[in-house]
């Protein structure tokens, strides 16, 4: 009985619901000491002196170090430098030495017997700063006279990146019947995984080996970057373990200064050292997401055909570059600006900018939410300008099923959309929401002075980011490959251990991968164990992000399973005294075609393979296979989300009355898990639209520095969501899977904003920047009622 496609309960849950799972903070090693980090209160300053004597003299304090003590270690690597342009790279140091460029940058560390003592001591460190003027706005940072952050980056420019045709787009805009211009601010967000970051490091002098536990979405990458690029030691001298991880949302992909610092300290101190981030630290020292200022021009014909899209974006990358920061607003943003539509002329120019703010890097969706926001707002702006229904404009411009593989006018740098049927998700979503009836209701509501709004978002995204040659050689600037690997080992008793280079931090890989194994090999899921997250014992992997663990990582597992089955057939045929070409593998057994009664089970075959008393000539013992899968293309999930809102005209508060999501993520392994991913994604997208916003004041202070001010979505602010799915297999991989981790976040933000703008459109509103706080909405309504009618 097939389990793929069914909502199997997660096998990882028992340890999570009982409190048995060990997250980083739960790990305690004998002799372990604790670190607390002193962080700069200033956003831009020179450090003129640091006095650590008082702190070091505290009872219980083992040592205090400053950046100078780690001057021999290089600055951290930036592994994704936007392709084809000069990246003026400046990255964090383990501890900053002379200068800080954002508030929260680490400048000293205390090691103590416990964290209470460590926190006592960091308050005693005396630092003198020469405070420098700060700039926090990416556009302002490029203006003449702006404070300069780095000598090698004039005008604070990290890079000027472009894609598409500038001339063609300019001409098409000129020829368009209508052109809409709009400035869109995609505000800065704080990922806020419920578990903050942390690390524990232990150095064993006898072997010269580090063991590093770290809250990472990519333990193999952590090891590679730390050993090869920071410590200059062989990879074999470090083992990196991601224990149970409490969510990541992108922010746990990166190599952070603290991880290198704690590893270095474990060697200096000779004891295991632990550092766990507090939420306050997390808000300043962990990467943020988004933060774009964008000007768009979109041209269209009277009939709603979109003819051109021109985009210029200032992408704020913070005071220094995080691990893959420049890749997000370029490859994953600019290249996705065609959306679900056939737009004949597209030009995108991105200015990556340093400012005196925290680092900005991938946050759930990473680039695609920003692109989708631009495209889906643009479509609604065109609809409004032409007085058309936004549904009609979408349909008019959709890439059609027979257009696939579709090349969005070259902006994907050679890749093509794999498959899709965009009308189908739109149709289903309209049906679920009862679109026509709802528009009638809206008309009635308007007559009663109520503000009811309907917002659509027909997104596509790019998942399973790989083709190593594309991301590397073809000029995207990624400094590594992006394949994934897996090992499948059928042990002597027929129990299977899968090891994968992917890393699960809530996605349920242990379940979904086991489902694939169970079906392919024809065995119960309980006979399958999936291991990940420890560089010891798992093959290399680039990590879990960009919805790539299924579309790349699980496909690697699938490949190994095919080869395991091939080998099982060889051995089974031998055991059945049949020719290999005469046998088939079915339901966990090898049998001669047409004679299912005489069969050898996979368990029998595994035993025979392991004992190796009698194997066919040339066949090695054991059922074991490792595969490395590098897909030929990315995958392109799509869908339509519809949000229905009503606004309280007295307060400007927005009530989400309904939220419909129809997604197509290709073949689905576990619908329950996919739905869960969509739910969570929607909440994050709605969070951005309505509440979340990281705000720095003009001096570079993060004034939304805690959960008292940064408004995470809460249960009572959200409705239950209405979900459905279509299933268009991806031709890119043999499983037909696409990826489901980010669709909700990508789709939801413009769906909500479009709904609110729709609600207020009778007042002449065409755009409102996020977050859509009650005050902004109230001001619009108030201005209208005071002056409008």
């Amino acid at each position: 009985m097939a389990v793929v496609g069914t909502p199997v309960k997660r096998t990882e849950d028992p340890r999570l619901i009982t409190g048995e799972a060990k997250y980083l903070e739960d790990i305690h090693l004998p002799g372990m000491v604790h670190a607390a980090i002193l962080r700069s209160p200033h956003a831009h300053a020179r450090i003129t002196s640091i006095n650590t004597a008082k702190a070091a003299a505290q009872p219980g304090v083992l040592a205090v170090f400053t950046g100078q003590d780690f001057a021999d270690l290089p600055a951290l690597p930036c592994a994704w430098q936007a392709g084809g342009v000069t990246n003026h790279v400046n990255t964090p140091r383990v501890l900053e030495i002379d200068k800080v460029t954002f508030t929260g940058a680490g400048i000293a560390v205390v090691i103590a017997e416990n964290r209470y003592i460590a926190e006592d001591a960091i308050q005693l460190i005396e630092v003198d700063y020469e405070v420098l003027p700060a700039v926090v706005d990416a556009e302002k940072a490029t203006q003449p006279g702006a404070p300069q952050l780095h000598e090698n980056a004039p005008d604070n420019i990290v890079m000027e990146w472009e894609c598409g045709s500038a001339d063609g787009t300019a001409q098409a805009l000129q020829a368009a019947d209508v052109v809409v211009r709009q400035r869109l601010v995609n505000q800065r967000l704080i990922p806020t995984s419920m578990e903050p970051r942390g690390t524990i490091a232990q150095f064993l002098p006898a072997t010269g080996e580090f063991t590093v536990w770290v809250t990472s979405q990519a333990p193999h990458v952590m090891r590679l970057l730390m050993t090869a690029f920071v410590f200059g030691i062989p990879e074999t001298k470090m083992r990196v373990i991601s224990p149970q991880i409490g969510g990541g949302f992108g922010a746990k992909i990166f190599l952070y200064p603290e991880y290198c610092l704690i590893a270095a300290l474990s060697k200096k101190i000779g004891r295991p050292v632990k550092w766990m981030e507090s939420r306050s630290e997390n808000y300043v020292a962990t990467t943020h997401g988004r933060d774009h200022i964008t000007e768009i021009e979109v041209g269209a014909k009277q009939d709603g055909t979109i003819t051109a899209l021109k985009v210029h974006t200032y992408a704020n990358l913070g005071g220094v570059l995080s691990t893959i920061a420049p890749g997000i607003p370029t490859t994953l943003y600019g290249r996705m600006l065609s959306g679900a539509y056939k737009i004949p002329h597209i030009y995108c120019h991105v200015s990556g900018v340093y400012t005196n703010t925290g680092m900005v890097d991938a946050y759930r969706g990473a680039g695609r939410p920003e692109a989708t926001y631009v495209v889906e707002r643009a479509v609604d702006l065109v609809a409004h300008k032409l007085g058309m229904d936004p549904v009609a404009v979408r349909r008019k411009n959709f890439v059609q099923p027979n257009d696939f593989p579709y090349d969005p006018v070259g902006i994907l740098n050679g890749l093509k959309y794999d498959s899709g049927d965009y009308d189908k998700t739109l149709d289903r979503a309209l049906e679920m929401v009862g679109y026509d009836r709802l528009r009638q209701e809206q008309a009635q509501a308007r007559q009663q002075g109520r503000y009811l709004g309907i917002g659509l978002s027909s997104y596509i995204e790019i998942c399973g980011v790989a083709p190593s040659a594309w991301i590397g050689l073809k000029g995207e600037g990624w400094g590594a490959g992006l394949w994934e690997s897996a090992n499948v080992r059928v042990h002597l008793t027929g129990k299977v251990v899968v090891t994968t280079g992917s890393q699960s931090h809530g996605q349920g890989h242990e379940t979904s991968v086991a489902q694939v194994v169970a079906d392919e090999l024809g065995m119960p899921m309980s006979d399958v164990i999936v291991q990940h997250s420890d560089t010891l014992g798992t093959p290399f992997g680039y990590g879990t992000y960009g919805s790539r663990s299924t579309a790349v990582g699980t496909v690697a597992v699938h490949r190994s399973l095919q080869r395991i089955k091939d080998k099982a057939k060889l051995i089974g045929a031998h055991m059945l005294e049949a020719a290999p070409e005469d046998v088939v593998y079915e339901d966990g057994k090898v049998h001669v075609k047409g004679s299912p009664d005489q069969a050898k089970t996979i368990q029998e075959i595994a035993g025979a393979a392991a004992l190796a008393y009698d194997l066919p000539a040339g066949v090695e013992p054991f059922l074991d296979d490792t595969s490395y899968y590098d897909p030929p293309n990315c995958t392109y999930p799509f869908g339509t989300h519809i949000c229905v809102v009503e606004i309280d005209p007295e307060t400007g508060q927005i009530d989400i009355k309904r939220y419909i999501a129809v997604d197509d993520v290709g073949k689905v392994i576990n619908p329950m898990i996919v739905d869960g991913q969509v739910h969570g994604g929607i909440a994050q997208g709605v969070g951005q639209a309505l509440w979340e916003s990281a705000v720095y004041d003009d001096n570079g202070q993060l004034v939304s520095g805690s959960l008292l001010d940064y408004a995470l979505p809460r249960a009572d602010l959200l409705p239950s969501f209405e979900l459905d799915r279509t299933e268009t297999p991806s031709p890119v991989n043999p499983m037909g899977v696409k990826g489901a981790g980010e669709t909700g976040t990508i789709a939801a933000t413009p769906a909500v904003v479009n709904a609110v703008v729709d609600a207020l459109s009778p007042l002449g509103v065409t755009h409102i920047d996020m977050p859509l706080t009650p005050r902004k909405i109230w001001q619009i309504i108030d201005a209208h009622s005071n002056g409008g009618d």
Partner: protein
Amino acid sequence: MWPSAFEYQRPVSLAEALQVLSDHEDAKVLAGGHSLLPAMKLRLAEHEMLVDIGRLSELKEIITIRNGGVKIGALATHAEIAASVDVQRACPALASAAGMVGDQQVRNWGTLGGNLAHSDPASDPTTVVLACGGTIQIQSASGSRSVSADDFFIDLFTVDINPGELITSVELPDLSRHKSAYVKMAHPASRYAVVGVGVVLEMSGNTCTSARVAVGGATVKPTRAPGAESALAGSTLDEAALNAAADAVKSDIADMLIGDMNYPEDYRQEMAGVYLKRAVRAALS
């Protein structure tokens, strides 16, 4: 997340508590701890001594008193107040406000006395205690006094309590024949009141004979709104009266507004008007 060190005392009687407070002027009183500990965890509050009065059972009682009012011990929790039939009868607006504080975990352990002593401008019960005309009972080693809520709230986080003094209880009049309500707009992050309005209306038939209105959240401290009170008093609480009161409350609080980045002063001021109307409607319903 790691408070700085302090000396800890846990007196077993009120008398002992008052003596300790009298001996240690800088000592900080720890009741439920739900206002104090969050600041201490961040090391934005550092105290040399905490006096934990949490075990003083004599401060936990909620009882109906002679005049039909209710006396609430300082250590009664928000959850206990919300669930108390005595409070629901005598002062339903306070029961309802207590049910809006923070979240259920906070309501289980946060106390009315602690809430009043801390007097966060965005707290819910403080606003209602003022609207209801409560009286705060205060004791010290040298005696006791009572302060009317009208005089108790001095400024931002500043109330009429001196070193060595302790809030022991709050007395609220019998408002069972009045119409009263508390409504708030909750901040999406902190759940504090962006604006909270408490109203107590004395009715004769359809006419409001007198009104007490208090605003919190929008102001540096819980604040009476005399203009709004006169606009309501004598009216039938019709739309015109409500609008007049809403306009009046905005000027009543104009010189003591507070705001933050997403909910600045101007918005809170406007919302005080909106929520005043909502409070009156809630009281009448």
